[in-house]
């Protein structure tokens, strides 16, 4: 069999599953329930995950005339993205309104978006990169506006769409300049030509433009302004996806562009990322301190986490890439988890959006309360959770790369961040005031699907915190594949 097709097997499976969902959705009568489509979407994602693991047996290499690559690096991210998507699907199954006849579109868009993200991690041809980025972005633009009958839903979608297309435009200009400067859009060829180029002016300009596009997607300062509004307006299951999977894909692209395409310009992009990392951490944490809305707070915290992650880029190639990949995995596990818990507590329609509304959750639902506290602990970065090792590797990579000051800024920021995480944790653990209506609030029901999702995220966070070795080794393999 032609290995070309095997090398895009996960993406193919996701697309086919998405099309199946679309077709079944269109064939059902207009008012019928569409929740059952999860039985296509979830197995499809699992199959894609399995297909990614199958690819381990292939020799690393490219397919379709050097457009797509399979290597431990792509497989690491494929598995990560498929895992996130699976959890997000399970979360959506139990929390989206049951009578909504747009659920088919939801599942289809998630699957199409996932295929774009997977392709983005595997693409070694800049035009394929652009197309993959667009596939994933356009799906997420629509998903962000899923609650279209609320005021904030369309606002989120429009903001994300306009700013996102603008940022993608920068990326495309960067690609065009790369092509102009080197005469190729294939990353290996560009790397080869850039290494021997005499004049780096256009390549540097192209790199700057591409960085704008990519850093927007990972919501790093100063391209972070869309994050809080979009996270607030989009439904929480979507945010669980939005804050992790596209970011993982975009970080994969960033690693590829910096370490594989233009490693020789390290002296140039390293200080730049140093500043962006420091700014993201500081801006994210300081702004999060003042937030009353839980989702906005978590949005700013995700900006800060992008900063911690970027600190790893200050590290030398092998350590830096491995640390970044590990951090993405750890961050995904705990962030999807915390959004799952927040969805359950504040409800799909978000009748309890504020930090103050979370008071006494621990007494209403001990399980959810303790899970929330657990994920907050991980986000702070206390040992025995994934968050700890993520930060540990990231900062030690930074120190290894000579960016001691950046590591110190990161540590200080972690201290600041602890303040608002602890504030939320304390609120959750406070006794509900007597006579308050909150005591009468219903206890959120945890369905089977969402239970599985929670189990999965808690398990992953704990596993990464107690026995990070296997994932770290996978991340190191990925790092080797990229060099």
């Amino acid at each position, binding site marked *: 069999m032609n290995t070309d097709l095997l090398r895009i097997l996960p993406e193919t499976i996701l697309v086919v599953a998405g099309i199946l969902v*679309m*077709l079944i959705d*269109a*064939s059902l009568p*207009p008012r019928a329930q569409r929740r059952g489509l999860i039985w296509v979407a979830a197995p499809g994602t699992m199959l894609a995950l399995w297909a990614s693991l199958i690819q381990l047996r292939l020799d690393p290499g490219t397919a379709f005339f050097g457009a797509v690559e399979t290597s431990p690096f792509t497989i690491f991210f494929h598995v990560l993205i498929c895992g996130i998507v699976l959890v997000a699907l399970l979360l959506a199954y139990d929390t989206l309104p049951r009578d909504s*006849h*747009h659920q088919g579109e939801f599942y289809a868009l998630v699957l199409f978006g996932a295929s774009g993200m997977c392709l983005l991690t595997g693409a070694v041809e800049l035009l394929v990169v652009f197309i993959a980025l667009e596939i994933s972005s356009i799906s997420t633009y629509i998903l962000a506006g899923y609650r279209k009958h609320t005021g904030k839903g369309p606002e989120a979608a429009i903001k994300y769409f306009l700013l996102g297309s603008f940022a993608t435009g920068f990326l495309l200009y960067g690609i065009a300049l790369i092509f102009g400067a080197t005469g190729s859009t294939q990353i290996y060829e560009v790397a080869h030509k850039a290494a021997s180029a005499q004049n780096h002016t256009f390549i540097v300009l192209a790199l700057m433009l591409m960085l704008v596009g990519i850093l927007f997607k990972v919501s790093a300062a100063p391209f972070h302004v869309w994050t809080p509004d979009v996270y607030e307006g989009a439904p929480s299951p979507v945010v669980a996806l939005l804050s992790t999977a596209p970011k993982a894909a975009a970080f994969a692209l960033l690693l590829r562009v910096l370490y594989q395409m233009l490693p020789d310009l390290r002296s140039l992009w390293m200080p730049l990322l140093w500043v962006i990392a420091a700014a993201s951490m500081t801006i994210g944490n300081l702004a999060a301190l003042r937030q009353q809305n839980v989702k906005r707070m978590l949005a700013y915290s995700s900006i800060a986490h992008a900063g911690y992650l970027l600190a790893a880029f200050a590290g030398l190639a092998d350590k830096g890439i491995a640390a970044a990949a590990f951090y993405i995995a750890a961050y995904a596990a705990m962030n999807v988890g915390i959004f799952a818990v927040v969805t359950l507590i504040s409800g799909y329609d978000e009748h309890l959006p504020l930090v103050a509304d979370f008071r006494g959750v621990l007494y209403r639902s001990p399980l959810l309360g303790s899970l929330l506290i657990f994920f907050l602990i991980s986000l702070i970065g206390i040992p025995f959770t994934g968050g700890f090792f993520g930060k540990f590797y990231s900062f030690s990579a930074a120190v290894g790369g000579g960016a001691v000051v950046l590591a110190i800024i990161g540590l200080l920021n972690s201290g600041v961040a602890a303040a608002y995480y602890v504030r939320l944790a304390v609120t959750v653990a406070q006794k509900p005031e007597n006579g308050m209506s909150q005591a009468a609030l219903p206890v959120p029901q945890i369905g089977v699907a969402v239970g599985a999702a929670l189990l999965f995220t808690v398990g992953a966070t704990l596993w990464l915190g107690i026995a990070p070795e296997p994932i770290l080794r996978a991340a190191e393999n990925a790092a080797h594949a990229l060099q």
Partner: protein
Amino acid sequence: MNPIPYHWQYLPLLIQIVVAFGLGTSMILGSRFVGRHRNSKTKLAAYECGVEAVGDARGRFSVRYYMVAMLFILFDVEAVFMMPWAVIYRKLPEITGSRFFGFWEMIVYLGFVAVGIFYIVRKGILDWSLDKADL
């Protein structure tokens, strides 16, 4: 006589464009100067079958027109991709060494187009008489 270079062929096309638009412009300008002008307020009002016009035509209209416009963009781009394929189709067996290469490539592509058509039809985007679609 030297053979005429290919790119010169665009020159007559350009001349035709200039002549065509020039003709339209001169006809409209010409009649403006030739015809007589005897205007009145009623004569210059918007025509609504002899009744005085109510409001103007800057109101809202059916969103379906936007949907059709968007679908057109989608499908027209898809149609455009087919043109280069069609031009090279008969040479593909020589280039790729496989008789059905071009055929299967396009079947996959057209499959996506067909799924799109099926979806919009079933979702009621094209039902102008029913209000099945949740627009």
